[in-house]
């Protein structure tokens, strides 16, 4: 029974954690609300914008996207399915660079799909350019 005062004192000195919990909860809610999980998937068009001499030596494969929604290579319509075979057979020893020349009215979705097909077929780099009129 003599110990009782000390045990009582021990209880008194215990830290009150309720304000701490309140604060932590507020922080937690703030970070939950502020966190926006942006989980994008996509394609990257890596193109070294160099005017190196090798480009002149081996001209890159150039697709044309006119406003009518076709895919042209050297003036021949090849369609979206024809892109990958052309990229594959263009060069035997080196994956080609691909330039996609788009005209006014061509849809970005088609351009993206052509880029995708070219990259799928192993193109080294893909670049979008606007056709100079």
């Amino acid at each position: 029974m003599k110990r009782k005062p000390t045990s009582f004192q021990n209880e008194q000195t215990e830290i009150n954690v309720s304000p701490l919990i309140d604060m932590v909860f507020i922080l937690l809610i703030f970070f939950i609300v502020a966190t926006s999980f942006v989980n994008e998937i996509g394609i990257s068009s890596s193109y070294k914008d160099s005017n190196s001499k090798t480009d002149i030596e081996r001209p890159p494969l150039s697709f044309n996207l006119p406003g009518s929604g076709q895919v042209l290579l050297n003036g021949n319509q090849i369609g979206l399915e024809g892109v990958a075979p052309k990229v594959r057979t263009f060069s035997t020893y080196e994956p080609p660079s691909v330039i996609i020349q788009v005209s006014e009215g061509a849809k970005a979705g088609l351009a993206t799909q052509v880029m995708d097909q070219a990259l799928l077929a192993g193109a080294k780099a893909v670049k979008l350019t606007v056709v100079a009129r």
Partner: protein
Amino acid sequence: MKLRRRSILEEEDESINVSPLIDVVFILLIFFIVSATFVTLPGVEVARPRVKNASSLQKNSVLFALSEKNQIFHAGKSVQLSDVPPLISQAIKDRDKPVVIQVDQWADATMLAKLVSEAKKVSPSVSLATLKNR
């Protein structure tokens, strides 16, 4: 004396032990602090084109959106093409953040080409956001 002591003990037993709760809340808090990247969304919903070989892009990136009506959006506002390079350099500062363009599949491809080339002026990595094909 005996009775009183017992009642105090009982009272203490009745109060809920909050230490595990605090532990869990702290773990959640640390998780959300670490995962918070504070990405400013472009503020417009676009119909992304579907492609075959889409890969996961880096999460902490500067986002631009090209809408169906060929408007460029960044951080909830419509911006001009000429404003894009300063906006990117302002957003990336010294860190190496890639640029991600959310393009609508019905947007004009010439606009996309111009936007990509503008972005390439200041950022080495420019990607197009797409959807996985099925």
